């Protein structure tokens, strides 16, 4: 066709409109994000602290104390800005890290750019030099567990003792050996063996400081456990680890049956409460007539 190749103004205009809108979006987002997050201390608190400490030991991710000495600064910058791409490039250090930290991959933090990454590295360097960093995380006592700890842990797990930050009790989603009644919830895994599974006291405590699963993270980010609560729970779970996992087959049937019984009971109760409810008119007229004829 003769028009092929020819540049029509009408073709250009909408394009230009879209590009304009896109560039405005970029400008606005560039302007908006750094306004609240450019301060690296605030940014670290909001985005890093749930998985990393500086000098407080490993959590979900590694302890970042002196990380700038351990690794090449350029590698660090690349990793912070886009962890996924470094990992998928087959980088040996990154692959090793992923394996060490139970296959949890660091997400790309929204609003991250080179300038911010530089500032964060500076912050980590500065905090590492301190005797005790403000990001040392929750310090959990290393004293031996006492029967009182285990008892407190049991009460916390079962929800008899509310959590200080008002988070939901463990039994809401998890089962454990010795839970009374129908047992705990089935949303999360059975926690009877979790002490052994995670590899003991320290990893379990670290996990509880900042739970990283998609369900628990958003809940406990707002309502974190205290050091005492973590200790008590660890004591309780250590004690349970020696027991066989609960057999709940009977309880599930009982749960189902009791639900059925309740439902049927309610149907009869409603029927009795609304005994004189409206049930239609025509049929009752015919029934009356038949009754009077029979009489």
């Amino acid at each position, binding site marked *: 066709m003769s028009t092929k190749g020819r540049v029509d103004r009408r073709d250009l205009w909408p394009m230009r409109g879209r590009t304009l809108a896109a560039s405005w979006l970029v400008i606005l987002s560039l302007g908006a994000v750094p306004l609240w997050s450019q301060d690296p201390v605030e940014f670290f608190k909001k985005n890093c602290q749930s998985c990393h400490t500086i000098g407080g030991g490993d959590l979900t991710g590694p302890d970042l104390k002196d990380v700038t000495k351990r690794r090449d600064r350029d590698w660090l910058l690349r990793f912070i800005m886009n962890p996924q791409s470094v990992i998928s490039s087959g980088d040996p250090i990154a692959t090793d890290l992923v394996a060490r930290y139970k296959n949890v991959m660091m997400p790309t933090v929204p609003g991250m750019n080179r300038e911010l990454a530089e500032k964060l590295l500076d912050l980590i360097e500065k905090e590492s030099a301190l005797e005790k960093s403000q990001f040392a995380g929750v310090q959990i006592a290393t004293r031996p567990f006492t029967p009182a700890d285990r008892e407190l842990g049991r009460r916390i797990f079962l929800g008899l003792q509310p959590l200080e930050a008002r988070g939901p009790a463990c039994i809401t989603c998890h089962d454990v050996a010795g839970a009374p009644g129908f047992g705990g919830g089935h949303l999360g895994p059975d926690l009877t063996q979790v002490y052994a599974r995670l590899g003991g006291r320290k990893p379990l405590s670290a996990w509880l400081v900042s739970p990283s699963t998609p369900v628990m993270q958003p809940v406990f980010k707002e309502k974190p456990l205290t050091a005492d609560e973590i200790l008590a729970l660890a004591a309780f779970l250590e004690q349970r680890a020696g027991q066989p996992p609960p057999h709940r087959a009977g309880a599930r049937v009982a749960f189902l049956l009791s639900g059925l019984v309740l439902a049927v009971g309610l149907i009869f109760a409603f029927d009795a409460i*609304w005994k004189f*409810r*409206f*049930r*239609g*008119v*025509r*049929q009752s*007229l*015919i029934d009356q*007539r038949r009754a009077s004829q029979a009489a």
Partner: protein
Amino acid sequence: MNIRSQVSMVFHLDKCIGCHTCSIACKNVWTDRKGAEYMWWNNVETKPGAGYPTTWEDQDKYKGGWEVNGDGKLRIKSTGKLRVVPNIFHNPHMPSMDDYYEPWTYEYEKLFDAPEGADQPIAEPISMVTGKKMSVEAGPNWDDDLGGSPIYAANDPNLNGLTEEQKLQLMSVERLVFFYLPRICNHCLNPVCVASCPSGALYKRGEDGIVLIDQNRCRAWRSCVAACPYKKTYFNWFTGKSEKCILCFPRLETGQAPACFHSCVGRIRYLGVLLYDAERLEEVAKMPDDELVEAQRSMILDPHDPKIIHEARRCGISDDVIESAQRSPVYKFVMEWKIALPPHIEYRTLPMLFYVPPLSPVQASQNGDVVTHTSENLFHDIDNSRVPLKFLANLLGAGHEGPVRYALAKQKAVRWHRRAETVGDVDRELADRMLREADCSREEADAIYRLTSLCTFEDRFVIPPMAREQAIEMMKDPLQEKAETGFGFVGGMRKGL
């Protein structure tokens, strides 16, 4: 004063022959669809009879309409702001399919397809709900066929307050008497269906008072079905929306009478505009039963009064509509002659469909060889009519006989007057005395006669100009839609993606 216009109706029961042409016209136009099989926006009932749905007038059972509660406030009988919550998924006082009827058809193809045999093939009834063979036990005009009248007619709620003798008289085979009651939506001034809807899907059109259900906003709560005391909203089980008589507004908007009006063989139906004062609605709806008929009339305004005309213009009613109201046949029947009455106004919805009560068949008495039709007391027949006055009063006078007796006496006087004029076998003086006693002049009697017997289409249907091109400006700017696909309330143009 807040003057509104209302398209109102009069059905002249004395002229209804119970042919159901209106029902069929409506059915064919509007409810011949899946999910609407059982709906009869227009139906004709035989009275005494239980009606459709069965004993719909029994509000002790169906809880329709309004009531005035202890602190003098109007209250919906079936629901309320709080009561709607526990009943939201099930309205306890709704008619069941059995109370309407199970719609059916016949196996007509059997008449053609049946293999040759010793017997004639028959078309058995088939349920339109299940598609299986059924035995027909009820229908929308079951009383019509006198199907089990001891069951149905004997349970007509209007028989309340009649003496045993009167009831027996109505039911005894040799003296059996009945009349017909065609019913459509009354397009009430105080519509309880609109008030009861939790979704706000029902509305009364501002410009002509037609009550409609917005099919997009209806959420199938069915509160309107329970609330309407006339049981004139229906639930469509297929679309999951409620539906009702729309007074054929697409026809009205093009200057045609609604289908049931247009097709009426007996020419019993009249349609015209009434102006009324909306400010007095609540006050009137709260009046005691015996004052309701008069109170509703007091709301309706004289379209000839210059003050009213001035005020109506101020309220945005166009001159065309005012002029239409001045020619309204409904205004004549309801306000000038006062012979048309609202049905069951004690439900307090203020219906805007009025009925001219029917005169019973003429009762003759035999005196030796002479058969006479008059008695000493001129209006004796009305007081001792074969349809007891109390029965008509229950239907059309909120239980009070006064307005019904007035309407019947006037009609009877008109008959005697015309008989004196045209046949001449009635003494002129006797006719004049009857007119006087019935509060009627010769001119008025002639006018009633003309509009009753000689009425043309133009006399019966004074349809106001609907001026949709202006009415639409309330909702959208017509210039915005210019050069698009045209105007429309039902489904307007949508711009953009």
